């Protein structure tokens, strides 16, 4: 792992001395390799390594830590800082009903995550309403209906023949009079390069003015994470990110890529297929995981 690799790099540098440009080069190469293996995007790695170099060079080799451990500490701290200092929660105190919109690539886990959030809101004493705005995927509306039934959250009646924007507007009307206080809009998976479908997301946003627009991304996403997140953010001005399928063995470097390019908080992580499997994001845990 990275610790062992860095120990090797610094095996001749002991006790008193400073981390210099020369002895740091090999260490930085190892850090770069570890981050790329963890799926952090190329450009994000480049900037990150530069920052680490600036912070490491000139540092005294402190007695208690080996130089390798010192570099790891700098890398780890920098990762945690970048991934987001404090835990961020959903903004639920604005004008009611609050609308939470989920968007992302195909298969990232939006529909399942919508139900997970609804279940949590129900537990908190709120009155959630699930809105199936995916009229394209076969049985997508049915999928959300099944999940809604399972957790006892009502699902807005919709048909695949309707227009997603119309569905969302109707759902907001149905929530009127305090019948529901939180709407969870499940949108169809789409490519960031599909102009028509990205425009549809903007129209949904304009129609229902969400308090939260959450980008749902697969934790195992590779180099493409930065391109996709940048486009979704440019088109929608996201308020947060959810990473799914985190209970697998993906290193999850996409977390760093997405956070760096959008500067939006990673609010939750999906850690399983059952509807309780939604946790708060922990930057320090993610940093350790990325470093392997």
């Amino acid at each position, binding site marked *: 792992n990275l610790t062992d690799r860095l120990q090797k790099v610094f095996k001749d540098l002991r006790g008193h001395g400073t981390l210099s440009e020369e002895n740091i080069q090999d260490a930085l190469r190892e850090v770069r*390799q570890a981050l*790329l*293996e*963890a*799926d952090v*995007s*190329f450009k994000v790695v480049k900037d990150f390594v530069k920052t680490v170099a600036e912070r490491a060079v000139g540092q005294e080799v402190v007695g208690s830590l080996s130089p390798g451990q010192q570099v790891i500490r700098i890398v780890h701290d920098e990762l945690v800082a970048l991934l987001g200092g404090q835990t961020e929660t959903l903004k639920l105190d604005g004008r009611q009903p609050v609308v939470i919109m989920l968007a992302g*690539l*195909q*298969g*990232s*886990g939006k529909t399942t995550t919508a139900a997970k959030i609804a279940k949590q809101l129900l537990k908190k004493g709120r009155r959630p309403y699930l809105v199936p705005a995916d009229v*394209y*995927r*076969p*049985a*997508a509306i*049915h*999928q959300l*209906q*099944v*999940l809604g039934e*399972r957790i006892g959250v009502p699902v807005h009646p919709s048909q695949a023949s309707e227009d997603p924007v119309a569905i969302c507007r109707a759902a907001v009307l149905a929530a009127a009079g305090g019948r529901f206080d939180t709407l969870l809009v499940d949108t169809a998976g789409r*490519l*960031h*390069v599909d102009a028509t479908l990205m425009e549809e997301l903007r129209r949904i946003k304009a129609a229902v003015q969400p308090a939260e627009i959450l980008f749902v991304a*697969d934790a*195992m*996403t*590779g*180099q*493409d994470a930065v*391109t*996709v997140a940048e486009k979704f953010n440019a088109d929608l001005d996201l308020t947060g990110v959810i990473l799914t*399928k985190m*209970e*697998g*063995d*993906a*290193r999850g*470097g*996409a977390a760093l890529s997405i956070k760096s390019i959008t500067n939006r908080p990673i609010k939750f992580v999906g850690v399983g*297929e059952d509807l309780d499997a939604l946790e708060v994001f922990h930057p320090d845990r993610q940093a350790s995981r990325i470093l392997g």
Partner: protein
Amino acid sequence: FRGKKQIDQELFDELEEILITADLGVGTTQDLLTHVQQQVKREALQDPAALRQALMDRILYYLRRPELESHMVMPESGPFVIMVVGVNGVGKTTTIGKMAHKFKQAGQSVLLVAADTFRAAAIEQLKIWGERNAVEVVAQKSGADPSSVAYDALDYARAREIDVVIIDTAGRLHTKVNLMEELKKIKRVVAKKLETAPHEILLVLDATTGQNSISQARQFHESVGVTGLALTKLDGTAKGGIVVNICHEFNMPIRFIGIGEKMEDLRDFEPEEFVKALFA
């Protein structure tokens, strides 16, 4: 390297960035570049275009080793059984809908098997693909034992003399031991029913996934033995370069690529086109 006049470190850096951002992975990229670097010395290459060609040829070599030219061969008698596996959300069910279309167009009769009895509306989703293709779908209730659905489907296929049987399984992370055991059981039950089946165990990989695809390939191969790959969502901006490493390490042929969500959006894998697209 468009407009580059010489082979220098800057060119190698550019090529490294192209390959890494295409998800080839840092290790595979280093192996490839080291190989062409030696080639440059040996052959005293001067032209950047020659270097690029050498690199593309080397990637092609990884992708099409002779064993990889194994095609899916229809058995002498009985249905050709394909079991489709992979982690959650990669496009298994949709790919099955597309394959049904392809086989029907080729004049084959097709039967789909709804052995994802776990995920909400999975059976309904496959049934819609069945309707779109005018092919039958064997299904039981949600929550049924997937092995029993597969077992019944093979009886049905034999009785109706169906040419191709495609089994849809639930998405599952390769790290979940009990779920991988379930997959092994489906395979065993199918083999009990029809000795040579499944004839193809198709692992579906998402082109947007990074290095974790290697772990997926390794684990699924270890558990049930993967005989072919399908790479989906190549209509996005991800290049799917991870398959270069997977083909090289596991000797798995890439059968199909997915380039969209409609039933026609399936192509046979074309290595040269794929390699060109890596550099596009």
